[in-house]
């Protein structure tokens, strides 16, 4: 399967925005927060307010890469009875309403327990684009690499400022969709200053052969989006969106998304 032939693949959407002189906005929200139906409406609102690629989080009991805002939201979703199968319902409903690619961001054990093949097949049926896997690396993901090769799903792996050149090269080779560059040595959360480490990491990823690389973690306002898009192909925003949804519901979320997406066209 040749991903670049499809106009709505993650990579083609990001590249189209980059080629137009700017870059993409990637927006994260957890499934099931504050409830399943609202999380679907919220994701649709992102797409309708300028978010180019959706990243749907799977609530998990042990989210080691998440800060407090996202932890609170995902714990609430779990308390409300979130089930892993709800992810496919959400993806399907979102894809029926808006034409943006949907990636699923998930810790590894829920996929493992669902069955890697079964999870992938149901994600394909629901119209999902692939997985972002924050707590495994390509060298620990043989089963997922085989399954994503079989199904054509994107597999987004993370790159960190501390990653060696050799590891960056392997990550770039293993990745499909975009490389997720961790901006700073931290977990998800708001930061006022974006780390210069992000700029350096993106430059190193280019040398390692990355055609599409987005920066995530710590981006919370339009200026930061704009700043990141000077050197990266996409800016990933999570905590700021989850906080808007938690504080002011879908309407506040829509406003925040629109403001952030203005950052992709600032001069």
């Amino acid at each position, binding site marked *: 399967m040749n991903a670049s032939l499809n106009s709505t693949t993650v990579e083609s959407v990001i590249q189209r925005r980059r080629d137009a002189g700017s870059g993409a906005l990637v927006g994260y929200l957890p499934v099931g927060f504050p409830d399943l139906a609202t999380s679907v409406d919220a994701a649709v609102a992102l797409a309708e307010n300028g978010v180019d690629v959706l990243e749907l989080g799977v609530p998990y*009991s042990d989210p*080691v*890469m998440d800060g407090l805002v996202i932890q609170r939201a995902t714990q609430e979703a779990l308390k409300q009875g979130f089930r892993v199968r709800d992810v496919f319902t959400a993806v399907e409903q979102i894809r029926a309403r808006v034409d943006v690619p949907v990636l699923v961001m998930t810790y590894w054990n*829920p996929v493992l327990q669902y069955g890697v093949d079964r999870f992938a097949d149901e994600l394909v049926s629901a119209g999902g684009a692939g997985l972002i896997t924050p707590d495994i690396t390509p060298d620990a993901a043989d089963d997922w690499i085989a399954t994503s090769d079989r199904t054509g799903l994107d597999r987004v792996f*993370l790159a*960190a400022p501390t990653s060696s050149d050799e590891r960056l090269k392997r990550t770039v080779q293993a990745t499909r969709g975009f490389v997720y560059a961790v901006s700073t*040595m931290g977990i998800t959360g708001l930061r006022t200053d974006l780390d210069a480490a992000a700029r350096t990491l993106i430059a190193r990823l280019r040398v390692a052969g990355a055609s599409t690389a987005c920066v995530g973690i710590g981006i919370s306002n339009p200026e930061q989006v704009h700043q990141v898009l000077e050197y990266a192909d996409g800016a990933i925003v999570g905590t700021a969106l989850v906080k808007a949804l938690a504080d002011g519901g879908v309407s506040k979320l829509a406003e925040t998304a629109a403001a952030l997406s203005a950052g992709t066209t600032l001069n």
Partner: protein
Amino acid sequence: MSLRDNTGPFFGEYGGRFMPESLIAAIDEIAEAYEACRTDESFQAELRELHRSYTGRPSIITEVSRFAEHAGGARIILKREDLNHTGSHKINNVLGQALLTKRLGKTRVIAETGAGQHGVATATAAALFGLECTVYMGEVDTQRQALNVARMRLLGAEVVSVTTGSRTLKDAINEAYREWVTSVETTNYVFGTAAGPHPFPLMVRDFQKIIGEEAREQVQELTGRLPDAVAACVGGGSNAIGIFHAFLDDPDVRLFGFEAAGDGVDTPRHAASIGKGRPGVLHGARSYLLQDEDGQTIESHSISAGLDYPGVGPEHAWLADIKRAEYRPTTDTEAMDALRLLSRTEGIIPAIESAHALAGALKLGKELGPESTILVNLSGRGDKDVATAGEWFGLFDEGARQA
């Protein structure tokens, strides 16, 4: 192949290194430094000297005949890790990892802790080596092991009470990982049990295997032969693998791990990961895990903070699968009864964790008969548990309770 030679990263299908990329460089650095230390005579000599002059090794063995009268007449011999400086086996591992921290040139250590014993040991080593120290501990545990919180603070460590998730050991580990991601350049993570990503299960086991190596000699000297059975409690599995390891290639020595059964393994409130869990990935390794159908971790329950963990080290998962070791449950009540029995018959107050192994040994003795000898790892002393025991048995005078 000798079972003792397995050095990971995989033990059968268990173990590995399932970790965020942000921590891989630090873990690689530890793995590489540890690989060098494993065969570095100066490192090993420095550690041996610390054990001799600081920890108080070798720890003795004590035969407990009055206690053994309640075990069908079998001989019961305790390996006295409770007599180590800081009161448990945890110091064996911590001194090793603290020396490694120095070799890495890092100036700060972080640790997770359940019962507080690993936290106390880490705070102790940090004081000894002049390192900054922060310990993460679930809020439930800071309450039930308040004495150890004060001990850590006395030793100069910062104790962070973790209020997310189940507020016990697993969440303390999550929080320590989160913190480590942000401070990895100056900070080493001193992991407290034989679980987590490679090389922790290997490294912690190597630092703890001195327990079994000493005991194997000591028991032979006392009885003229190897024990018939070796018993230990299993939280993450460090004291158990520490005493098992020297016996892995002695096929006539049966190995028994006792998991915390809380209210009972047929209730939802227990911590029997091997007995009741199934394989999954948590905290960086594949192993047995208490989890629901969706792979969400199920909260464990045990009166013992040190055993209140829904996972277990990968080497135990492997030993269980190949049937080299057997894992059995001990309930809260059985453990507390054994704690009181050892106190009254021998004048030794064990940690509640260790009491799970003692309760197991009482049953094993009846099963194996009066000709048998059982070696039990007394992994820690019960000073930290006096408040819990006082409440359990109603030992406090009305109105005389101390905070």
